[in-house]
């Protein structure tokens, strides 16, 4: 009955295919070619240099340092975010009737996720401000003046200050995902465990965790890929600055932006893009392998 269906199929697919090919696929494919050139952007010719962009990046201290920052984010962000999100989700779904006020807390905790990262970044730039930021003011008011810092102007604290903002804004999001997963576990499992004398912690460790592992796994991979980026938050919170503290937290995405739009080293920037892709793929595969567990049907 779908005769002459191509009269529909072709015009319906064409706009999507056209836009996707021109603005997404073509730049992706071209990036691989540009990465092999030393193009300065102005000349028509793009001198082919083989893998030398990659070779010089791997010996470039600033790039390797940036890579190290991503590695640090990769450890700190999933651990900090997912452990707290898991704890909150568990607290929300445990207890006799759930906890009072759960609906309110849920709405509040999720809110930062909806906010623009740019606003969150600027806001925390001022929260951390050494002169009148509320963090230092709060520390002073409870007699902890010795703990006040120039949070974003100091190599020792800037990484943690930025990581905290990420974790702060992401906890509610992952908490909601974990709660949905926990609540799909049949209550009868917990009843049986209770009858057998299992404690809260035992129930959580031996029932909740294994049964929601697929969700946790997906969350780990998702947040890990986010940790490879971190462009917006770092760019905004360092005020796009080039002081030594800003340099000390620079992730590879920020370094790529500088290579491209400040130094006009387009070939090198494209090479960083390719490396970023390879890292994303590698990380996904490795994490999928490492986190693979037996799945339980219920």
């Amino acid at each position, binding site marked *: *009955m*779908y005769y*002459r269906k191509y009269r*529909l*199929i072709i015009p*319906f*697919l064409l*706009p*999507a295919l056209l*836009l*996707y090919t*021109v*603005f*997404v*696929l*073509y*730049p992706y494919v*071209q990036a691989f070619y540009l990465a092999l050139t030393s193009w300065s952007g102005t000349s028509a010719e793009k001198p082919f240099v083989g893998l030398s962009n990659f070779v010089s990046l791997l010996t470039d201290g600033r790039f390797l340092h940036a890579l190290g920052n991503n590695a640090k984010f990769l450890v700190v962000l999933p651990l900090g975010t997912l452990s707290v999100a898991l704890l*909150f989700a568990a*607290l*929300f*779904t445990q*207890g006799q*009737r*759930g*906890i*009072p006020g759960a609906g309110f*807390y849920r709405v509040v905790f*999720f809110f*930062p996720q*909806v906010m623009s990262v740019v606003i969150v970044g*600027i806001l925390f730039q001022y*929260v951390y401000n050494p002169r*009148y930021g509320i963090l230092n003011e709060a520390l002073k008011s409870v007699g902890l003046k010795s703990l006040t810092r120039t949070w974003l102007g100091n190599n020792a604290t800037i990484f943690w200050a930025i990581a905290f903002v990420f974790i702060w804004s992401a906890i509610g*999001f992952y908490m909601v*995902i974990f*709660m*949905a997963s926990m609540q*799909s576990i049949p*209550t009868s499992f*917990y009843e049986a465990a209770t009858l057998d*004398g*299992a*404690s809260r912690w035992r129930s959580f460790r031996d029932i909740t965790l294994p049964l929601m592992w697929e*969700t946790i796994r*997906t969350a780990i*991979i998702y947040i890990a*890929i986010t940790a490879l*980026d971190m462009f917006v938050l770092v*760019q*905004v919170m360092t*005020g*796009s600055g080039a002081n030594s503290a800003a340099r000390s937290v620079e992730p590879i*995405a920020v370094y790529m932006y500088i290579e491209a739009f400040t130094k006009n080293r*387009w070939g090198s920037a494209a090479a*960083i893009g390719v490396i*970023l*892709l390879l890292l*994303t793929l590698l990380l*996904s595969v490795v994490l999928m392998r490492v986190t693979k567990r037996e799945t339980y049907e219920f």
Partner: protein
Amino acid sequence: MSSTPINPTAEIDPEETISGEIVLDTRIETEPRLQPAGEKTTLGNALFLGTTQILMILWSVVVIFPFVWMITTSFKRDMEILTDPFGLPKALQWDNFSRAWTSAHIGTYVGNTLIVLSMSLTGTLLISAMAAYVLSRFEFPGNRALFLLFTAGLMFPMFLGLVPLYFLMDDLHLRNTYVGLALVYIAYSLPFTIFFLMGFFKTLPSEVAEASVVDGAGHFQTFFQIMLPMAKPGLIAMGIFNFLGQWNQFLLPLVLMQSESRYVLSQGLNFMAIQQGYDNDYSALFAAMTITMVPTLVVYILFQRRLESGLTAGALKG
């Protein structure tokens, strides 16, 4: 990834989507749980609940307070911000908002954002819906390959294509244009929106479409008058999802809209924040942030559940 924890279409009964009553609602009521043994005493339970409450209240304060501080600060004089960061404003300085809106060009940035989003959101939804409809409901050679081609876009980091995209837009004379940015927004929103809507169209009953074809309606008519209205809940979910994504987008405009009069809001706000180093007009900056936050806050409070399910479904695209 082998499983999607939150299946966006799982809870939608096709019968009910026709009436439009059931929307994407992944709300799950907090089920009562039995108390574990060993904590049967009311004291143990009270202690547990008390600790939990304290923890929750503390974290609520940590989450809410920066926003409250931002709003109160936006009504203060610069002097008050420096001398009394915690206090309430002595008088409401509405002038901060007018300075932010006009002198700091927040009004222009809002206008630019609205122009771009009005084109890009309409385009994203329409073009994705058409492609998703064809891909999910018609058999033809290359169908599967096209599906894989679109979903492959979900795996690639945007940074990979950034440099070529910049030059492509330059060659096409689309840099610093509203249409150019809107087209790029649409293109980058397609993979996930198509992926999501395909799952949606698959759940719609085929009898209705077939009946309308039998009744003599053309394929186009069937799509626009029957299938699209039936897919409304899915379109709303993707509308909200893409609205937030595109409203908050920072990287693409940073690269593609480099003339200040064309800045979109997130970019303009960042520009203004950097300028503060020279201008020292903190109160106007806070007012600008408040202006930017309020629409999001209102949307969030009105559509909290839909937004939550839309965003979480978006993240875990499987």
